[in-house]
């Protein structure tokens, strides 16, 4: 994965960048399988590697294939990235070890779910029971977010198209 990321940073051909992004997503999906999160892995493979690659390729079709030359030195973005990354790593230091049975993440509501999910919802898959029933509000919110995102993208694209129709041509569609 590290090699892929370095490749993405170094590559100047955007087509290669999109493909490497897909490779990264598949690697991420493999990691998630190892972590026993098969459903998240399926999502990552389908969305990250599949659909988003297709969408990015469609966008590449509209813009040019080469990366635009930098107009300023990337020092400030670099500092922001390092600070954010450092803060995140610092935050993980205090987390209990992964998979520890006595850790607080496994002591709160998890035992209740494991004990009661099956006979309360008839769903042997506790993840589904939690997502759809115990945490139904959260999932409803998620669906609403997807709904809003989809509508938002559609409205943006439709608005642009109408404006382009009004203006007369002379616009390669590069946005």
């Amino acid at each position: 994965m590290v090699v892929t990321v370095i490749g993405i940073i170094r590559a100047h051909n955007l087509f290669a960048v999109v493909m490497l992004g897909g490779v990264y997503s598949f690697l991420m999906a493999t990691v998630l399988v190892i972590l026993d999160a098969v459903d998240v892995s399926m999502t990552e493979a389908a969305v990250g590697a599949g659909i988003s690659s297709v969408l990015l390729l469609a966008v590449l079709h509209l813009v040019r294939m080469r990366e635009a030359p930098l107009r300023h030195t990337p020092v400030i973005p670099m500092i922001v990235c390092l600070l954010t990354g450092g803060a995140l790593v610092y935050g993980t230091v205090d987390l209990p070890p992964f998979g520890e049975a006595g850790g607080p993440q496994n002591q709160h509501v998890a035992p209740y779910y494991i004990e009661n999910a099956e006979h309360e919802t008839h769903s042997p898959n506790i993840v589904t029971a939690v997502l759809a029933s115990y945490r139904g509000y959260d999932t409803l919110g998620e669906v609403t977010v997807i709904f809003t995102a989809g509508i938002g993208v559609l409205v943006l694209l439709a608005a642009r198209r109408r404006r382009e129709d009004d203006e007369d041509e002379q616009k390669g569609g590069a946005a």
Partner: protein
Amino acid sequence: MMRDTIILRVVVKLLLPAILIFALYVQFHGDYGPGGGFQAGVAAAAAIILYGMIFGIPAAKQVVPPSVVFVMIPLGVLIYAGTGVAGLLLGDNFLDYSPLGSKPVYGQHLGILIVEFGVLVTVSSTMLAIFYAFGGRADEADAAEEARKDGEGGS
């Protein structure tokens, strides 16, 4: 986009039913195995998008017309929220599925299935709608490119 490659066409035709069946399996088996509405929706949308890539977006739009997609996006949210309201009307809390069945357990199970179906509807149609939007623009750009084939000042 790639209408001339026979290998891709044949392979995709063979793969499509498998992908769609897998999506349905993930959907309706989601309460026993891994998966659920989101995964199934993404897989189903990916199948249609694959079809659109190989056979052209107009063909995909014949299979799933954009009007259907636009109805499906809010429909999924309404199915989900409606299930919650149904529980509310039957005298329980919002999004409590217990009163939907003869016994609370069956109600919960049924509620999960319906809610996951709502997720499937919204997720798959949203993905498709975005794909149609981008793909349609790419096609338009192609047409524009064909129209003025000259004077492309590359930098």
